[in-house]
């Protein structure tokens, strides 16, 4: 088989598989990629060794398909992964108005626009400009993290204190949510210190050690909330037009590109933070632009971070997908870069085409069953996934993380504070005092 067909088939297979898997709540494509990497490593040196021309396009397709289609469980089932967190509230608004289809498709258009921006605008410029910026910024990554943490904590506004006479009682009522937010951040950070220093997860699946915590912090609380309080989902309409034009797309790329770009480029800054920055940086009043911007941001975060590894002359590894591929392969020059860019373009088009039928299928599922039952089913799948990948220890970690993840739900504070799990320990490590803190905690 010629290299062309091999690449095309691989990227198609990777995209289709990840697009379908993305509809399953709780399962992250990095879990699947991790298992595949272990398999490929095991086959190395045998007659059945998998060539890079097969797994590179396949992995690219997987990352692309996932970054596009993980909108479906986030918007329609209310089980977001961390990067899709900001699509849930506006997405569920659409769902409750009978426009869930539009909500997911607008995000998908954002993903497609993000792919265009990445491949046609960023990719040609990246080899020239990113090595320069890397040289300037390499000693400054730690304070960028601290600055992001500061903004995250300072930009949450009080929700209470709305009535009654002025005074301390009102102040305390208002600050309950903020204190809960701070507590969430600190507790998640402590959990992060434990998991990153002395993870109880079996060393054979050590690369998945953070997965159960993420599921517990972000997906399980949504499921529980939906099971307890879900109102009936109204019948869903399939819109003939998304009522978007080139201008809306352009402005979405502008907002989402910045947030997603920052998240892709800076270490530990995740898609959720990128989504928050995308929303804050551009002050868009149009809800469609916000939702589409989240689609752009999410795509650029996942796929852009993966692409960075292949940019000639940059030598930068960002994101779980790239780190896993790095265990198998070291990129060599422009040929690999073009291979990955071509794969991104094909996979983006393919996954966009899969978005419509898979959204309709999920909507049919929601129409047919009570939303509470759908959420219970989603929770069941999530727990099975966690158990399958990390066993009972993983379920225990997920339970602890769920306790922390429920704090924002109960107090109405910001869910993004759960990202303290990564931000706090890694910022401390990068600034050089992580070991002191793990010493205080008795972890080292």
């Amino acid at each position, binding site marked *: 088989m010629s290299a062309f067909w091999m690449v095309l088939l691989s990227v198609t297979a990777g995209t289709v598989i990840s697009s379908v898997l993305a509809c399953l709540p709780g399962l992250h494509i990095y879990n699947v990629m991790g298992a595949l990497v272990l398999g490929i490593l095991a086959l190395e040196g045998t007659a059945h060794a998998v060539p890079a021309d097969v797994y590179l396009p396949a992995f690219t397709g997987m990352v692309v398909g996932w970054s596009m289609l993980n909108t479906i469980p986030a918007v329609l089932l209310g089980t977001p992964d961390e990067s899709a967190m900001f699509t849930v509230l506006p997405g569920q608004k659409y769902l409750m108005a009978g426009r869930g289809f539009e909500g997911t498709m607008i995000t998908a258009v954002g993903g497609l626009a993000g792919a265009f921006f990445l491949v046609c605008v960023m990719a040609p410029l990246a080899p020239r400009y990113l090595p320069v910026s890397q040289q300037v910024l390499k000693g400054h990554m730690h304070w960028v993290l601290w*600055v992001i943490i500061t903004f995250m904590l300072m930009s949450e506004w009080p*929700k209470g204190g709305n009535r009654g006479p002025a005074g301390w009682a009102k102040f305390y009522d*208002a*600050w309950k949510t*903020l204190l809960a937010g701070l507590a969430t951040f600190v507790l998640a950070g402590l959990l992060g210190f434990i998991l990153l220093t002395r993870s109880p997860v079996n060393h054979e699946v050590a690369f998945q050690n953070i997965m159960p915590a993420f599921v517990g912090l972000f997906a399980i609380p949504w499921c529980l909330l939906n099971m307890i*309080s879900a109102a009936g989902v109204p019948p869903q309409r399939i819109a003939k037009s998304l009522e978007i034009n080139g201008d809306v797309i352009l402005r979405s790329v502008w907002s989402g590109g910045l947030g997603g770009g920052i998240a892709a480029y800076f270490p530990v800054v995740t898609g959720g933070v990128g989504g928050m920055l995308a929303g*804050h940086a551009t002050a868009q009043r149009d809800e469609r632009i916000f939702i589409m911007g989240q689609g752009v941001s999410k795509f650029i975060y996942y796929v852009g971070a993966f692409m960075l590894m292949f940019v000639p002359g940059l030598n930068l590894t960002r994101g779980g997908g790239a780190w896993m591929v790095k265990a198998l392969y070291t990129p060599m020059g422009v040929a690999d870069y073009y291979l990955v860019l071509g794969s991104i373009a094909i996979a983006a088009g393919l996954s966009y085409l899969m978005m419509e039928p898979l959204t309709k299928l999920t909507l049919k599922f929601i129409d047919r069953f009570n939303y509470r039952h759908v959420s219970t089913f989603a929770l069941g799948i999530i727990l099975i996934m966690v158990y399958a990948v990390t066993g009972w220890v993983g379920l225990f970690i997920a339970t602890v993380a769920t306790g922390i993840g429920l704090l924002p739900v109960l107090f109405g504070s*910001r869910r993004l504070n759960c990202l303290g799990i990564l931000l706090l320990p890694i910022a401390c490590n990068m600034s050089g005092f992580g070991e002191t803190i793990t010493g205080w905690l008795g972890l080292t």
Partner: protein
Amino acid sequence: MKGFSHFMSGVAVASFGPWAIDAALNGNPLFFVLGGACGILPDTLDFKFYRFFYEHDVYVTPDPKNPDPQYVADEYARAVALAVDEKRYVRVKLVSIRLGADFWQQYSVKIDNEKLEVLVKFGPVVNTGQVPVEGTENRYPTVARAKLKAKVIQTYDAGMKVDIFDGPTIGLKPMENGDLDLEFLPWHREWSHSLTIGAMLGALVGAGVWLAAGWTPAWQSFVTIAACYGVHVVEDQLGHMGSNIFYPITKLRTPGLHWMHSGDGLPNFLTVWICCLLIFWNLYRGQPAMTYHFGFVHLMMVGLVIPGLVFGALRWLLNRGQKVVVAKGDDADDEWNDSKAAG
């Protein structure tokens, strides 16, 4: 401006201090954190602290069990009468109506100065996402009216719509001609938005640092805090609402330059982006062994002018022959809604 724009401006201003970059290269992020925090601090003081201690003369608190628009109209008229009769500044709180865990009765207050009336209309029930609940739009079809004792002059178009979480405060200030000047959120951009307060805060922290660590970090802290706090005040002055720039020397807000609204997309994005470029430039200058070299003009051309022109050209192409309607904003209204919507 939006909180993020102020925050990034603070970080950018901090990056102009060579000491901040030296400290960062040695693993100390404090000056940059201080810069960002002080950049957003004036709004933090208002929205997270001061407003909960702000006393009101009239609390308009509709009964959630029996929401009555006429009550709101009558109370509003009473507050106006109070300001006129007692010739003093009257502070009114329009309290939101919470109907359930996730449901709020929306209402709006409008002034008709021609007829000297206040008009109150109850809208739909909305959820916390501000989405109307179907079938609740016309539960209160009548518009309640009450006569006002004086004209209420509103110099900017902040919509007086009350729905989720907290309701707004308005101040009614008697003017010499007998009319009342309406101030939306009078507790906002008062003492906190002052260059003097920024300098005082810097001096206070600087004094503490001086005692703890000596003169050099003390003046560096002072300069960082005062400058980053000050840039917030200066940026807000570009909008409509203005700030009380030299409190406690000045007592009133100085009206803004009316160049932009605080929630406008383009100015906010440009601020954030230019700040990113300035930070980048300052880090480049502070980097000891660069193999790549470029000038400031080159950076601005590549990072701002060329992408800006491409973006402008694309927008022009995409919008040719179409009427682009951009939602109009208002400084106070934007910031108020922003504080409620930020999740």
